[in-house]
């Protein structure tokens, strides 16, 4: 049926263009391309200049995070010869574009490259855990409603009233043991509340729409309604807030590691590198904390730009 509908709509248009081309005396071949939802979204996304820049930065960072450590492996037991040590480190030069740290004379570029892997891993995977939990809780609350909804939302209220930064600190210190995976789980378990509220409100509004009513009327099962009718329509707001979650988790991880409660300080995450640099703060080697921090800013900017682009691209009301 949709095929038929499309040709009924597009054929007069094609004929019109061809007729006018003939009148003007130009040879004009008209083909119509039908775009699906994703192609339309991509077309709108491409118009968003900052989002494309953000996507580029993010692409480079992810490539560096995956490939970089193979080219520049981090050996934490390599110790420079005593006569080579400059206590204040060496400033950026051609050999070491980001400079060398004080103390163990690490190449800051190497630390940053290896840190990218951990930081991005924590950001993305804790986002995934948070989004999954948030979507499940929000869907159940929004679809079942009533008593269950009330209980779940009170739990969310309570969780959102806690000062999350404090709770994350305390939880990382008490449960984390410096383990990357535990830190990821802690971050995921403490970052789903916003998403669950969002998903619940989306469910409440989509549930009342005609197409869901129609699906119910023809006897579609609840499971199919949730997965085929409601969730796909709730997809884009979830993606947008998920992208913001990545950014905030990366910053929080850096902060928690910076305080020494996060990932084991022997691993070079961006937060750990910053934290280690504090010991040599008075030596004046500014390049040591500068570059990891710059990476955090770049990542967060890129993620936010991509998020903005996604918001515009996935909104069916905005036109390309």
């Amino acid at each position, binding site marked *: 049926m949709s095929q038929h509908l499309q040709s009924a709509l597009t054929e007069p248009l094609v004929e019109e263009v061809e007729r006018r081309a003939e009148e003007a005396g130009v040879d004009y071949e008209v083909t119509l391309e039908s775009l699906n939802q994703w192609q339309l979204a991509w077309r709108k996304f491409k118009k968003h200049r900052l989002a494309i820049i953000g996507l580029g930065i993010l692409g480079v960072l992810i490539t560096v995070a995956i490939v970089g450590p193979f080219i520049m492996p981090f050996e934490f037991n390599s110790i420079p010869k005593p006569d080579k040590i400059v206590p204040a480190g060496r400033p950026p030069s051609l050999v070491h574009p980001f400079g060398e740290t004080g103390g163990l004379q690490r190449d800051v570029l190497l630390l940053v490259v290896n840190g990218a892997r951990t930081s991005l891993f924590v950001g993305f995977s804790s986002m995934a855990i948070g989004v999954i939990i948030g979507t499940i809780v929000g869907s159940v609350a929004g679809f079942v409603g009533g008593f269950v909804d009330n209980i779940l939302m009170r739990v969310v209220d309570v969780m959102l009233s*806690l*000062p999350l930064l404090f709770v994350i600190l305390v939880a990382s210190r008490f449960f984390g043991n410096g383990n990357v995976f535990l830190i990821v789980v802690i971050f995921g378990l403490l970052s789903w509340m916003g998403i669950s509220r969002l998903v619940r409100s989306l469910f409440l509004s989509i549930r009342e729409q005609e197409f869901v009513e129609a699906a119910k009327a023809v006897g579609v099962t609840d499971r199919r309604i949730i997965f085929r009718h409601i969730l796909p329509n709730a997809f884009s707001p979830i993606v947008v807030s998920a992208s913001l979650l990545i950014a905030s988790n990366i910053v929080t991880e850096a902060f928690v590691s910076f305080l020494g409660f996060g990932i084991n300080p022997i691993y070079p995450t961006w937060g750990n590198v910053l934290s280690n640099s504090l010991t040599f703060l*008075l030596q004046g080697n500014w390049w040591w904390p500068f570059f990891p921090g710059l990476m*955090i800013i770049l990542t967060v900017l890129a993620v936010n730009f991509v998020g903005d682009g996604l918001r515009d691209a996935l909104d069916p009301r905005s036109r390309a």
Partner: protein
Amino acid sequence: MSKYVIRRVVQAIPVLFGITIVVYLILLLAPGGPTARFANNPRVTSEDREAFKKAWGLDQPPLIQYCRWMGLCNPDKGGNVLGVLPPPDAFIGNTGWPQFLPTPISGGTNGVLHGDFGVSIETGEDVGARIGRAALPTFILVGLAFIIWVFIALVIGVNAALRRYSIFDQAATVFAYVGYAMPTFWLGIMLIFTFGGPGLNILPVSGMTNTRASPPFGSDAYWTYFGDHTINALLDIGRHLILPVFTLVVVNIAGDSRFIRASMLEALGQDYVRTAKAKGLPGRVVTFKHALRNALLPVVTNIGLEIPFLFTGAIVTETIFSWPGIGSLTIGATRAFDYPTLMGVLLITSFLVVLANLLADIVYAFVDPRIKY
């Protein structure tokens, strides 16, 4: 209106109760428990640990501990039911009234409900007193920063909205994006490099007072010193305030100025603004009397919601600049596994969040006559 206020207050009670349970659960589940602080101390034997637990009442079943910590149970009444539940007579205070009632009636003095947050395991001081002492530096730091950043955000946001898409607006947008992405602790470190010891060496980078010139802040000796050299003491605190306040201001302007800009743009697009312009009112009057006043409504709520986070949000800045406030207290307590202090801080800050939510809702209903309840 009063009905609405009462309903909101009643709704907040289960949330407050839930917070106490969650705070208690987090610290109950933590591996090691309060004795984890002795883990690396070979002089503390396992008998010592048991004695420590017994002395602090940590050998009791979790529900009884929670009940006593809350102030629902009378700690003078021992025993338990099935090894789990507190015995029924524990809920009765020494005067015969239920224990949870205020001290003059029930005679109970223990627990959160009676304003007793316990004793710090780390220092042996009263937790309430510790938090109270740390609150003053935090309020000085954050209060000052808050006033400055709200003012600057207002100026930036309103001007950006009035001159939409101008160079100023675009510069403000870039600034907001970068400010939003910038980690507070990184900005702090960079400021220390620039203005502190390693760089220009013109501003103090740590603490609240010059400890060589005056006794430590908050001690009795300090207040005597403060009385004798008020101007010098204030100037000293002022110098120490510059960098942390600057850090907080830069990081927090970003979000608020965007919010104010959006709110102002919405107000400027309203019909009554067009009417005001059409009837020939001067631009200033339209901007400030018609648009800004209405634009401030959502801003007031938003800023109201930010207030409790002032308490916690400065944790990063306080750590970097060794400011002796709530943030430093929390970090220290986390390092030392000081459970009572952590629970006190978590609880008080969460209560502040609930309170601020409540106030923001009520104030909003009060100032916006369009909302009917």
